[in-house]
């Protein structure tokens, strides 16, 4: 029996009204689910809409952007239209988010301790003293050995890896059901990245969270995700179980991405490339959004954007090449 999803996003559209004539369709009809305890990765290049999807879930879209359509359910509750007060309660308690650059997400004028204590007092209604003890415990949980000192230090006194650990401590402080991580290790060195990713997996298991990992790095995804969603031009173009997607890649874009990665095991003289660049979100082609760059483009692809075809129980792909395999 399949568990009911924890998060389910349905036909989400987030558009940015740039000026009178231009609307950037950053997220344009995205649907997916995250089950309890699952790690789902959204992969895409810059401009694919992956971060905007995450921010839309958290209701953190600012003008001129707007969620124009779609629903977001957490358990069975619709959260896309929650008033801001209730949403504030939900953020942190139910869903927490960590960002790429912890230096911009942390407040530079307050100590790390202050910022965690604030969370605990607000969301868990703790006493000040008790909250500080808990803050130190949390910092220890995320592997900061000098927790008693770090709690009184300011963000700039910590290294990038330590800052991201502190962010994770804040994120798990209210025991959320879902942790959204937007490029959590992109700003970090590779040895530190490995430490932080291992920590996230450890925390996920310890606190029984689901993880929505947003990244451009297919290597990270293949090691940590259960399921992969590939986004391009504001839409999902392929989705499957992680191993299946990497083994039997179907969408020409996903194939292109994988071929363009330098490989540590084999030596190749030339890397595979995808010609051209990502189309801007305010000027998307009317047909398939990958049409201009696709080596298999057909006349049909120019005319209309293909729907997502279900090619087996857990693999969908948005490409006319797989029209006949649709089992729906």
């Amino acid at each position, binding site marked *: 029996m399949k568990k009911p999803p924890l998060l389910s996003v349905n036909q989400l559209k987030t558009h940015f009204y740039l000026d009178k004539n231009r609307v950037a369709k950053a997220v344009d009809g995205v649907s997916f689910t995250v089950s309890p305890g699952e790690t789902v990765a959204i992969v895409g*290049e810059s401009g694919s809409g992956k971060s905007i999807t995450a921010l839309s879930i958290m209701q953190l879209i600012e003008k001129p952007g707007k969620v124009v359509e779609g629903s977001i359910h957490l358990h069975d509750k619709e959260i896309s239209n929650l008033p801001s007060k209730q949403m504030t309660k939900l953020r942190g308690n139910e869903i927490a988010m960590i960002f790429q650059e912890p230096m911009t997400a942390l407040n530079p004028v307050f100590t790390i301790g202050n910022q965690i204590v604030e969370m605990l007092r607000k969301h868990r209604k703790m006493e000040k003293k008790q909250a500080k003890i808990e803050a130190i415990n949390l910092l220890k949980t995320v592997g900061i050995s000098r927790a008693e000192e770090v709690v009184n230090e300011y963000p700039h006194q910590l290294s990038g890896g330590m800052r991201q650990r502190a962010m994770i401590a804040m994120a798990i402080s209210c025991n959320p059901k879902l942790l959204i991580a937007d490029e959590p290790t992109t700003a970090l060195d590779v040895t*530190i990245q490995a*430490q932080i990713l291992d920590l996230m997996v450890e925390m996920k298991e310890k606190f029984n969270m689901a993880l929505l990992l947003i990244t451009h790095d297919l290597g990270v995804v*293949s090691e940590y995700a259960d399921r992969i969603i590939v986004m391009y031009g504001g839409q999902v173009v392929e989705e499957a179980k992680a191993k299946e997607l990497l083994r039997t890649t179907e969408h020409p874009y996903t194939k292109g*991405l*994988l071929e363009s*990665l330098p490989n540590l095991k084999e030596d190749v003289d030339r*890397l595979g490339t995808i010609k051209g660049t990502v189309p801007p979100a305010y000027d998307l082609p009317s047909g398939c959004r990958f049409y201009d760059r696709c080596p298999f483009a057909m006349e049909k692809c120019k005319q209309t954007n293909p729907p997502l075809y279900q090619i087996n129980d857990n693999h969908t792909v948005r490409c006319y090449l797989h029209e006949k395999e649709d089992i729906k």
Partner: protein
Amino acid sequence: MTRLVQKKAKENTLLDVHHIKKYFPIKGGILKRTVAHLKAVDDISFSVYKGETLGIVGESGSGKSTLGRVILRLLDPTEGEIYFNGDEISKLKQRQVRPYRRDMQMVFQDPFGSLNSKMSVAELIEEPLLVQTNLSKKDRKEKAVAIMEHVGLRAGDRLKYPHEFSGGQRQRISIARALIINPQLVICDEPVSALDVSIQAQVLNLMKDLQDELSLTYIFIAHDLSVVKHISDRIAVMYLGRIVEIAPKKALYENALHPYTQGLLASIPIIDIEDNKQEREKIRITGDLPSPVNPPTGCPFRTRCPLVHDRCSVERPELKRPENDEHLVACHLYT
């Protein structure tokens, strides 16, 4: 590169770096006296042979970018010698260095910050000719158009400004600008790390093609080991201002000797389509990079090394050859 080619290459040394140090003074107190030094590059020696690509990898703070800038004399070395085609250039005045800059060019990481936004593409690409040659306006234009087409830019875009181009196109402009005066050595400082993977592949392929066509020598500085492996013939691994291991790429990736190199390689997430997620043995480097102002005594890596022993804190390991002529490592495990 085969061994024979490499032997030959040794006779064709283009760049020789001897015991280079770059210390940045840290000023303190009311009198702004020097209270300490940040040892960004701490006693580094290596050679670069004509036509090869030497990759330099390291994490942030390892001193790899400073090293690149010192070689180009954008920064003055604190100590040491730099021989370019046999000429010692480390002590020359800036005016005297200028002729050598014709042969040594640099491509920077950030194609947004390194191109003057008020100059058109034509002006940007022709600028090195203006500084270094006496070519006429017509000749400059001709050369610029040729190089633009060579790196995959449309000559029709000559009069556009950098902001009208994507990141990948902008990096092509930087490359055109570096190559227009036919340099011998190009130092590339993280040239693809700001780009998306599909664009990164385009630029890496272009750089390889240009190297073959124009017989260029590259020093390729990056933090991404898989990118460095793809483009390099030999690789030097830096840690806290020192080279800890240097070897031909095959030897380095198949038989890494230094514990830091081993840990670095194990940290890279690899696309693994088999179901053995748990089985792959992980060597994790713990902790953070120590401060280069106050580096550990003895071996710089000893505070994070899983194989540390007594000798490491007392004696600094030198780069030596436990394997063969081409594979050098600075670690007491091999002496």
